[in-house]
């Protein structure tokens, strides 16, 4: 019974079934909004179709990549892979073995689709012929009376390497998963980050590591300079200074890394310094407000009991009486503010840096407009293992599929004083194309000598 189960678990049919099932789960993950990936869409959907989403949640189809079903498929996949690999080890060992038993008469050796006979040109002896074959990458054993040659002998090992790379990726992924910290932090120009948990955004709340600590990095944001050409962001230079006084530039594609922690640029915002004064000029309040208005969104600023709805136009223009922006370039940044107090509108208007906007009994000043950036902070320990897995997978797949094995058996035969090479050849994967390859090989060898 156990043997039967192991046989089923280790079959390649089972591998194929599992790959198909995993593929189905991945497609489901694309089709059904996943709550970890598309949080906003998921919650909107949950509100509009609570019953449907309840059942999808129940069957874990809204977190399909980490569902028990997917995890059990993965578990079965790796169990199957382990068993297949274990069974293949002796086969691979046998295949890479090079022994005189492989020497066979080329005229009758079974499984060799290429069979030819070549006249040995004048001046070429058996040793020169063997040398010519071996210089073309064949390892030869035997003598001119009968030899066996193999090219890319160790290629079957790459099969094992390729599949071992899966375990490395799995191991690295597991280590990363358990040691992973993920959080978002919004930092404005001049702000200091000390690596404290309270500094991270509360929404979404940081994902704390199951093993290990949160990132220990500490730095100050020195400057933030966004670059935009028309409507395309072409770069951002965030200069930060670490606790050792060393400057680092963060750009898109260029995170700040501190050991296993990365600070990846995710979002840009503006942090205007608004100051609210009363009619006499007395300051009622003011501060830098990190608001999320770049890209046309609306945000809210509250100073005392006055609320301002804020819009932002980086390249402001007034066209046909409508506020707008010529591009996303920061050429002429202007805020549009609508002030409200006690639910009543008290005024609205545009405000530029160093400008003042009068609203009823109040005056709002804009003294400075630095930027703020949102960093996606991630700390993972397993990445080098994952990368090693990727490297091995790439190398192994090239090795196994491009540098596959070619085998030759040959012998020099003499008849009526004429010496001939009788040779048979075969390769993995290909039969007809290998025949062309062997013809070319021996064509070259004999042409070079004639």
């Amino acid at each position, binding site marked *: 019974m156990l043997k039967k189960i192991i046989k089923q678990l280790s079959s*390649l049919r089972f*591998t*194929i079934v599992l*790959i*198909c099932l*995993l*593929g189905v789960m*991945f*497609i489901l*993950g*694309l089709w059904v909004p*996943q709550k970890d*990936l*598309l949080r906003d*869409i998921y919650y909107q959907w949950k509100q509009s179709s609570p019953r449907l989403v309840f059942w999808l949640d129940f069957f874990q189809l809204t977190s399909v*990549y980490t569902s028990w079903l997917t995890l059990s498929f993965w578990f079965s996949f790796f169990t199957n892979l382990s068993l297949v690999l274990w069974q293949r080890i002796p086969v691979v060992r046998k295949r890479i073995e090079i022994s005189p038993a492989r020497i066979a008469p080329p005229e009758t050796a079974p499984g060799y689709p290429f069979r030819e006979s070549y006249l040995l040109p004048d001046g070429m002896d058996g040793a020169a012929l063997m040398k010519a074959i071996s210089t073309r990458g064949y390892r030869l054993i035997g003598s001119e009376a009968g030899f066996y040659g193999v090219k890319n002998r160790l290629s079957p090992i790459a099969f094992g390497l390729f599949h071992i790379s899966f375990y490395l990726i799995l191991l690295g*992924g597991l280590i990363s998963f358990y040691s992973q910290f993920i959080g978002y932090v919004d930092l404005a120009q001049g702000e200091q980050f000390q690596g404290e948990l309270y500094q991270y955004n509360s929404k979404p709340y940081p994902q704390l590591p199951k093993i290990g600590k949160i990132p220990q990095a500490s730095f100050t944001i020195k400057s933030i300079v966004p*670059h935009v*050409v*028309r409507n*395309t*962001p*072409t*770069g*951002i230079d965030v200069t930060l200074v670490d606790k050792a006084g060393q400057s680092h530039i963060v*750009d*898109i*594609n*260029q*995170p700040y890394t501190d050991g296993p922690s*990365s600070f*990846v640029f*995710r979002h840009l915002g503006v942090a205007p310094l608004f100051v609210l004064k009363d009619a006499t000029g007395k300051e009622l309040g003011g501060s830098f407000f990190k608001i999320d208005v770049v890209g046309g969104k609306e945000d809210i600023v509250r100073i005392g009991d006055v609320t301002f709805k804020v819009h932002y136009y980086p390249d402001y223009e007034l066209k046909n009486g409508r506020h707008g922006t010529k591009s996303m370039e920061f050429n002429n940044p202007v805020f549009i503010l609508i002030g409200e107090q006690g639910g009543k509108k008290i005024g609205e208007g545009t405000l530029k840096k160093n400008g003042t906007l009068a609203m009823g009994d109040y005056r709002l000043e804009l003294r400075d407009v630095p930027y703020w950036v949102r960093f*996606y902070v*991630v700390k993972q320990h397993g*990445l080098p293992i*994952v*990368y090693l897995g*990727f*490297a091995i*997978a*790439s190398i192994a*797949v*090239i090795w196994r*599929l*491009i540098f596959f094995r070619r085998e030759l058996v040959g012998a020099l035969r003499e008849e009526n004083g004429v010496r001939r090479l009788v040779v048979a050849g075969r390769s993995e*994967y*290909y*039969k*007809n*194309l290998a025949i062309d390859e062997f013809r070319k090989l021996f064509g070259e060898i004999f042409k070079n000598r004639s």
Partner: protein
Amino acid sequence: MAYWEMVFYWVALVFYSLACGGFLYSFIFKNPGFMPKMTKLFALGFVAHTIAIIARFNATGHLPWSGHYEYALMGGWFVLGGTLWVGWRNKELQGLAIATLPLVIIMMGYGYLQNPGLTPKAASLKTIWLFIHVYFAWLAFSAYSLAMAVGVIYLKKTKDALQEVKNESLERFPSLERLDELLFRFIVFGFVTDTIMMAAGSLWAKNLWGGYWNWDPVETWSLISWLTYGLLIHLRVTFGWREKRLAWLAIAALSTVIICFFGVNLVVNTSLHMFQVR
């Protein structure tokens, strides 16, 4: 679109369309002598296509890497470049263009309707990984497309073998056994480049998005596509699936690649692979 880019884009499309029509004529009217002439026309179109890419590069300062139009422009170039190269190395395979030309003409037509505007290179694309990731992605697409083309020819030729009067245009191709092996060779090449593409993409994703794997729709489809071709290789090597079954699989499997390149971003607007240049 830059002026000369537009001119040569249309010249290329016209040449490709004429060549495609010529290849079709050659197959339908069993006139193999027409094929080399059509290959020349196709090559002229390819030259125009190349000039269109150079003109765009000249106007934007970067190679066309992103957005549906640029996918079509560059992807089409790789697929047809591969077809020409294969036909140049082996004259018997010139006719593979019968399957790759329509694919690219549709791609280019679709791309033109999307976003051909000139855009500066988005910051997210400024990395060395772009070249490795995208280059290998196009190589994989090209190889898989050629596998599809061989599959189509294989099936036509199998059907033709049963006819009393043979289609000489199909006779021009290598034997069925050779086509079967060529098909597998293209799949293998595509799988190798696909693997490198995915590994390079993961390394890039770590720097750009903070994680080497984000279950992004395009990422997920590329994994589905990779698994599909991996499966195909296993079916061939281990279970001996070949000939008609493999040909059908090679044709069907290309759909996963097309969905990955064009389909996902068309229906999903949450993909990280938009790069703000949809």
